Structures are given as C-alpha cells and as structure tokens.
C-alpha cells in the first residue's frame, strides 16, 4: 500500500476489494498474477494480507465446544416416523415421480 497521504493508493484500494477472492483462488489467472506482483513489492500490503489470512484461519478453526443436548427418544421417534412416512409416500407414488 503506497499512500500519498495517510490513505492507501488507488492501486492498493483496487487490490483491497479482491483480497478474499485472491486468497480463495477464485480470480482469473491474470488478475491473480497482477495482485501477486503488486503485493510482492508492497510491504504494507504483505502485512495486511498476512493479518487477513491469519484472521480467516482463526475463523476456520473456531472451536465449537457447544454440543447439542442428547436427542430425546420421543423426538427421534418423531423424526423416524416422518422419514418412514416420506418413504411410504415415495414407494406408493406412480412410476416416474
């Protein structure tokens, strides 16, 4: 990011909008190359991209300690009954449906 004043340059701002797609490898090869080449020569961009990458990693590895309570037997029966009903409707349906 090459700021004229205290704000990032126009080029940096354009890259900024595409950083997630860049990290997710969802950009066309030429755009991807353009960003890679810009970033490689721009220390502030490297710093920012690294912090964004780290932040995404933290979200991806978020520890989900919350577990649902054991499924009550009555609810399991209700779900099973709904499944069986669906199957019987399906089996009874005319061919092709």
């Amino acid at each position, binding site marked *: *990011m*090459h*700021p004229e004043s*205290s*704000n*990032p340059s126009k080029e940096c*701002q354009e890259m*900024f*909008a595409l*950083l*997630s*797609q860049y990290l*997710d490898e*969802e950009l066309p090869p030429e755009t991807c190359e353009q960003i890679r080449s810009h970033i490689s020569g721009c*220390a*502030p961009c490297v*710093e*920012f991209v*690294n*912090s*964004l990458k*780290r*932040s*995404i*990693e*933290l*979200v*991806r*590895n*978020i*520890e*989900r300690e*919350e*577990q*649902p*309570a054991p*499924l009550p037997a009555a*609810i*399991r029966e*209700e*779900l*099973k009954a*709904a*499944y*069986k*009903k*669906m*199957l019987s*409707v*399906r*089996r009874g*349906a005319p061919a092709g449906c």
Partner: protein
Amino acid sequence: MVSASLEVELARDLLAGKEEAFDRFVETFRTKIFQYSYLMCGHREDAEEVSQETLLRVFESFGQLREPERVKSWVFRIARNACLMKRRKSVFAPAQELSLEQFLPRADHEGGEIRLQIADWSALPDTQVLRGELRQVLNQAIAELPEIYRSVMLLRDVEELTTDETAEVLEVSTEVVKTRLHRARLAVRQKLDDYLRPAPREEAPAARK
C-alpha cells in the same frame, strides 16, 4: 470431520430406503445444524429447536431432494430459514451494509517508510486452538456481524461450503456471496486487530487512587 461424499452417500442411502442410514444421518447433521444455528441465533435454546425443526422438515420432504449431491446446501437452507423464523431483535437487526472503505487501513510515514496502522499480528499465539479471551473476541466479532454477512461467513468459512453451495443456501448470486464474505472477513479482522493493539498507556480514572 465428515467428508462431503459421506454426506452424499448417506442421502442416497436414505432415498433408497436404507433405514440403517437414518441414525448416522441424524448424528452427522444434527451437530452441524446445532452449531451453525447457535452461531446464527446466539441462543442455545433456539439452536436446539432449530436443529429439531430442521431435521423434521428434512425427513418430511426428503423425497423432494432431487440431487443427493446437494444435500448439504439443501439442509442448510432449511436450517437458515428455521433460524430466521426465530428472529430476535438483538441478533437479527435490520440489514446493515458494511462498506469496503470502512475497513481500509490507514498508514503513516515513519522515517521514509510506510507503516500501516494495524496491530502486530505476529504476537498471536501460534496455535490452531484459541483460548480464553481471544476466543471470546472472535465469537463476539462473528455474532456482531449483520445477519447477511454472518450467514455467508458461517457457511463459507466455518461449514466450508463452496461459493456455489452458499449461493444456493442463501438464494443469492455467487458474486453477492463473494462480496459479502470479503466484507465479513474484513470486519472480523478489524475487531481482532482492535483487540490485539496495545491498550492506551493512560490510566483509567478509576485506577488512580
């Protein structure tokens, strides 16, 4: 973690009437739906209800699943709709747009060098599992995202759905998914960055005794 192909296999088995797949399907999807709903709704009791309601709806309409390959996005679409039915004002505030500009970092010139006004991320512990306060900050950052951004981030980065699958769940274009995901990530990065910055040196008035 259950691979996508196993989920598809379970869906195929259920459609084929193989009842032995039932328990495995419930076990696999119930925890996923619960955890997704918990992060979406912010309330344990809502998440419990959403996971039960979703599974009931799933089994009632399983015959409508034309493509078992899409079982994951199909189930999450039902779960998301169930979450929206539980709307609570605090977590489903009116849609608020996040702009890109608000997350652009500012920079300073320091001795001829450009320095971004961001925290030192290298200070973060190099572990995959977050502990204590930092984990709370992260959960809070996700919970505070406006719903349209939170749902994209949970599906793409937490549940690891593809961009196409996420677009299917949310019934929006893939471009919208990409735009919202980027803004959600920038917002969370910003919150973590604020947390990682050293506290101002000035003592709080209450501390001066």
